[in-house]
């Protein structure tokens, strides 16, 4: 099955309890399936950046095999609120 922005969003919401997800399909800029995602989840609280990214990589392990490029930004709900105000 082809990896889509919707599939990525659904997985992040169901498996990481993400409260906000933005998925940008950047494939047109590159040569193959590429995505840029912003994930806001309370599960990131108290976790350093590397661990947050590992959580996301694990959640999307199957999809990443077919993805050419993947950019991610991981925020806690608190960090997300702060960023929105800026």
């Amino acid at each position, binding site marked *: 099955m082809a990896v889509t922005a919707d599939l990525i969003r659904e997985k992040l919401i169901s498996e990481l309890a993400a409260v906000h997800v933005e998925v940008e399909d950047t494939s047109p800029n590159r040569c193959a399936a590429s995505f840029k995602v912003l994930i806001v989840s309370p599960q990131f609280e108290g976790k350093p*950046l*590397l661990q947050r*990214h*590992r959580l996301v*990589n694990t959640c999307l*392990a199957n999809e*990443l*095999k077919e993805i050419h*490029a*993947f*950019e*991610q*930004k991981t925020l806690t709900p608190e960090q997300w609120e702060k960023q929105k105000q800026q």
Partner: protein
Amino acid sequence: CSRLLCSAEGQKSLEEMVKKDKVVVFMKGTPAQPMCGFSNAVVQILRMHGVDNYAAYNVLDDQDLRQGVKTFSNWPTIPQVFFNGEFVGGCDILLQMHQSGDLVEELEKLGIRS
């Protein structure tokens, strides 16, 4: 995975590779000629911080290395950055560390002044 660098022996040689130099980068292309925007971003960030002497390995030259380093670090993408033998992250993480100022601190721990 039966390829050379995925074997126990191969993983051991990767461990030696990442410990041999303070800063080690696995990338697509070379620092002089990066072949991918993400690898280029890592090169540029390191350059901005005055990190000139680092070991860069081109995964495009070696498919075993490309797969082996992913297994070694349990990280699915290239580029990959190591400080003092420890996995730091990929391009996104290095960029965020650069923006937050954490990178200056980490480099200082290695004795590198930004």
